[in-house]
């Protein structure tokens, strides 16, 4: 079980779990709930580069399309293939089995703490 308080966040409702120079990225429970049932996830290719706050993927629910913004400059080193076939994992376990991508980065931009993110969504 991931400790949400130790994660970093973006205003675009992504979470990052940092280990060394690799960030594991997913969307928050708040974002998953807002989207509704997720039915399709389009993730970037392994090896592709990411630019901070540029769209690198899409998350579709029956009702709407959510964009996945790259939270750091870097390179995609792994994507969650299981989620591509089972997009409902993003709803069921957004901070665990529903993770989306891993990015190798050189430096981290300013990111939100758990407290700052909670204040942003109005949830504790």
């Amino acid at each position, binding site marked *: 079980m991931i400790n949400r308080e130790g994660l970093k966040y973006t205003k675009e409702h992504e979470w990052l779990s940092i280990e060394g120079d690799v960030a594991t990225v997913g969307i928050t429970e708040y974002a998953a*709930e807002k989207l*509704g049932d997720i*039915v*399709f996830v389009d993730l970037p290719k392994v090896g592709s580069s990411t630019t901070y706050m540029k769209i690198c993927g*899409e998350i*579709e629910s029956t*009702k709407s399309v959510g964009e996945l913004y790259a939270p750091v400059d870097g390179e995609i080193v792994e994507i969650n293939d299981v989620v591509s076939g089972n997009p409902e994992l993003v*709803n069921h376990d957004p901070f665990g089995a529903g993770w989306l991508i891993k990015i190798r980065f050189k430096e981290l931009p300013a990111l939100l703490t758990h407290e700052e993110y909670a204040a942003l969504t109005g949830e504790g």
Partner: protein
Amino acid sequence: MKSIPLKSKHEALGASFTDFGGWEMPVRYTSDLAEHHAVRSAAGLFDISHMAEIFVEGKQAATYLDYSLVGAASEIEIGRAKYSLICNEAGGIIDDLIVYRLGQNAYLVVANASNRDAVVAAMQGRAAGFDAEVKDESDAWVLLAIQGPNSVSILSTLTSDALDDLKYYAISESEIAGVKCLLARTGYTGEDGFEIYIPVESAEQVFDEIISAGSEQGMLPTGLACRDTLRLEAGMPLYGHEMNLEVNPYQAGFGKVVRLDKPGVFVGKAALTKLSQTPPTKILVGIAGEGKRAARADYEVFVEGSNSPMGVVTSGALSPTLGFPVAMAYVGADFAQIDTPISVDIRGATTPFTVVKLPFYKRAKN
């Protein structure tokens, strides 16, 4: 935003809410997909109290409605209903409606929430000179829709009325959970089911008893999110998407609803007569794709070899029942034939679709 009378009931069931037509409406309780599948396989209970109930009464109620709407209300038998439209003088659609005939001189017209004021104003304005009174009683009624194959068996535990005798598109006075209601066999999901018009003051009790009886038969409380995917699969139009003031009934595929042959004049007749003789340049069609990416409202539609769009998507989703993307779209009349290959620009990606017959989903009749 306006609140529906049973809002606290929905909160207690865990609903999240959305703004729809100026109303704060339950959008989902747990999962849109689970709610969608429940309606197809068991039952769902929708609170659609945002809809407008407009009663028309008087010696000339029938003649008046024939003048005010495009259909022939005078031909509806007592206790039956018809889908109709109210148009402006130019033939543009002000709203789509269900018209129930409650008695010789009494009708119930049900309009969309977002068009309530426009419909009431148009209908009252058109009543001048007729012995017919148009009354907006929307605030006095709660409207619940129970939809799905188990609807009959669930409701039958709450009434002694013979539900099987109530035909599709029929309405009757009924007693559900001890409360006098108007019970109609209509809906917006493509499934068998009922719409129940309940006086506000007794509605909580009816709601509670349906929820309780339904929970034993797989029924879920269902929100507007799944209502939209259900109606889309059933090929049913949604005002503001497939229809608006700029769209005429012939483009929308509802030419048959316009009764140019009925006696006398009606609002829009001159324009609609002309439109009926001119083939429309854009026609509403169903389109289906492969994969999982949905063509959504406002996406542009193309044909091979052309960079300029020949149409636009009005509603679309990945169909929960069918598993592939379906949509409705206005396309150039030359490309409206079934099996015509077209493409949709899905956020920059040219994605192949095919024109298919509507509805996308039709329930098996038993």
